[in-house]
């Protein structure tokens, strides 16, 4: 997806930047070749193959798709995936908004420290962070120790629950939300809030009438990012979560690893791809995909 987005401006500006001599029109296309080749090899062909499999393995039919939407277990997993993604998005938003607000409005060591924390989180691999939760929430982890130390008896089962999986995904995606909000909030002219105050707006009113509306693009961007990444999340739910509350990509994995049902797994993957595309298409319709990264 990122490749498609970045390739588009190159075609738009390329011809204008090159002198219009004989044969000059070919140069931009030549420059595009490596990226195009990589996209076709790594992206278009595999997806085409998955698409093909979903209709043809083991024989040509629409049966896989019918099964996804007919069997309650699978519709429940679909629903669960969307619900979990929505939950994670909302929690991320609630946590990230005040954080991004503080980071963008202050100009001192506090905001710098917070920004560094967020960036370090962002750059630490999500596998590492997922394993950290395994330790923290595990039977011998600090949470259990504190629980027992306080005399509450046997610690509750935290690991391998949808709580742990939601917590982990929220933690991993929070920096995305913070940075998406921050990049928009940082561009809000502080004089606008001063102007609001000089015009008689109390801090609350100024926030509601000026800052909040101007930060909405960041809210939309961050939510789309977190939501679409969450839809396809695999490692974290499989390590921290429970098979009872499977995410859709776990189902794909299970179908292939345990049942070798390539055709059915492909159909599920296609459904996930289409769902994500629909979300992005809606976003593109109202905002424009090129603005997703700020």
């Amino acid at each position, binding site marked *: 997806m990122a490749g498609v987005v970045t390739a588009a401006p190159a075609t738009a500006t390329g011809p204008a930047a090159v002198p219009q001599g004989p044969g000059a029109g070919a140069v931009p296309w030549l420059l595009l070749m490596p990226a195009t080749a990589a996209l076709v090899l790594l992206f278009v062909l595999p997806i085409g193959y998955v698409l093909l499999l979903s209709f043809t393995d083991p024989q040509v039919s629409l049966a896989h798709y019918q099964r996804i939407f007919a069997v309650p277990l699978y519709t429940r997993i679909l629903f669960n995936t969307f619900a979990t993604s929505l939950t994670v998005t909302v929690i991320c938003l609630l946590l990230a908004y005040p954080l991004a607000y503080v980071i963008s409005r202050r100009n001192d060591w506090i905001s710098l420290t917070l920004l560094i924390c967020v960036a370090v989180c962002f750059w630490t691999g999500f596998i590492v962070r997922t394993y950290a939760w395994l330790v923290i929430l595990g039977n011998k982890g600090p949470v259990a120790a504190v629980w027992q130390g306080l005399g509450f008896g046997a610690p509750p089962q935290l690991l391998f629950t949808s709580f742990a999986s939601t917590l982990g995904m929220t933690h991993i995606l929070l920096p995305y939300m913070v940075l998406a909000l921050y990049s928009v909030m940082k561009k809000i*002219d502080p*004089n*606008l809030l*001063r*102007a*609001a*105050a*000089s*015009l*008689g*707006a*109390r*801090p609350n*009113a*100024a926030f509601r*009438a*000026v800052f909040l*509306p*101007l930060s909405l693009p960041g809210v939309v961007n961050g939510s789309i990012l977190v939501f679409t990444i969450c839809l396809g999340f695999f490692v974290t739910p499989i390590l921290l979560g429970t098979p009872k509350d499977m995410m859709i990509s776990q189902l794909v994995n299970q179908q292939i690893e345990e049942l070798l049902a390539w055709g059915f797994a492909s159909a599920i993957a296609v459904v996930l791809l289409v769902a994500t595309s629909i979300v992005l298409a809606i976003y593109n319709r109202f905002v424009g995909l090129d603005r997703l990264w700020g």
Partner: protein
Amino acid sequence: MSDSYLRLRNIVKSYDGISNAVDDISIDIAKGEFITFLGPSGSGKTTTLMMIAGFEDPTRGTIDLDGKDLTAQKPYQRNIGMVFQNYALFPHMTVAKNVAFPLRMRGAPRADIGRRVAEALELVGLSRFSERHPRELSGGQQQRVALARGLVFRPDVLLLDEPLGALDKNLREQMQVELKRIHREVGITMVYVTHDQTEAMTMSDRVAVFNHGRLEQVAPPLEVYGRPLTRFVGEFIGDSNFLQGRIEAGANGKLSIDGIGPVCEASKLGAGAPAGPVHVLIRPERLRLIGTEPRPDLVATVQMRVEGTVNYGDSLLVMGQSGRIPLRVRIAGMESGDVREGGTISVGWRADDMHLIAGS
């Protein structure tokens, strides 16, 4: 201008606790006055404005408005309007919504809001643009919206921080006239910040000259130009020649200028010229080109080698040296006949062409 409406008393502001961005400023501003804060960049004008608006707290000193202490009031309680250099219009609101904002914040009745917004837009000539967004307007139009928004709630004082700084020259002159007209029509007290001396000279009732966080002089434009209190003011405002001289002690002490010699008796220069070293200010347009006829009215004449000229059409600026003293002479267009680069001219001045500032 003695009656005081907005009163700053011994205002000091230090951002870092070491140096003072504003250093002990006191000023009385009359109701309805158009006063300009003029000074180079970094001289503390914006900081002073921010303290009047309430966005910065003075480190020391008090600010009164109409006899009431403002210091403890928040910006939104002050009823002081502000127009920012970059306009600070709300980009997500239409022109009408922008102008209605201060009225909405004050809970004005809906019908009232509509009427007063229309009036304010009429005042700045933007009635036709009320449903546009700021980004659909030119810089000058945005500035007018900011003005309408700052005036619509009838603030006690309107602060303007380099409001024309981002406009091109023609538009700027047009807006200067416009702003003066609006000031006359609404009669509101305006504090106007600029680093452009022409703007200050043409628009203000009084000019307050800032330098390094201090006030050098507060006076009407012509007085600031003709009788600057400090060398800085004389050099910052208008074109100038500064000569170094000294006045001898005694009742009839003579003024002599370094490199020229004795010029005239100090008593001719008006009262209060103190003995000791003085700066002698002569404006370029007060240096007179002399022909062959005798000029008994002049107290000094010098020969000057012409090194360069700038023709302004209506006048000619001549730059050159007299001995070691650099001089700038401004000559009205028709008199400039035999001035050419590399040549020599005679210039002279009368006693009242000089303005003396004590010091060396």
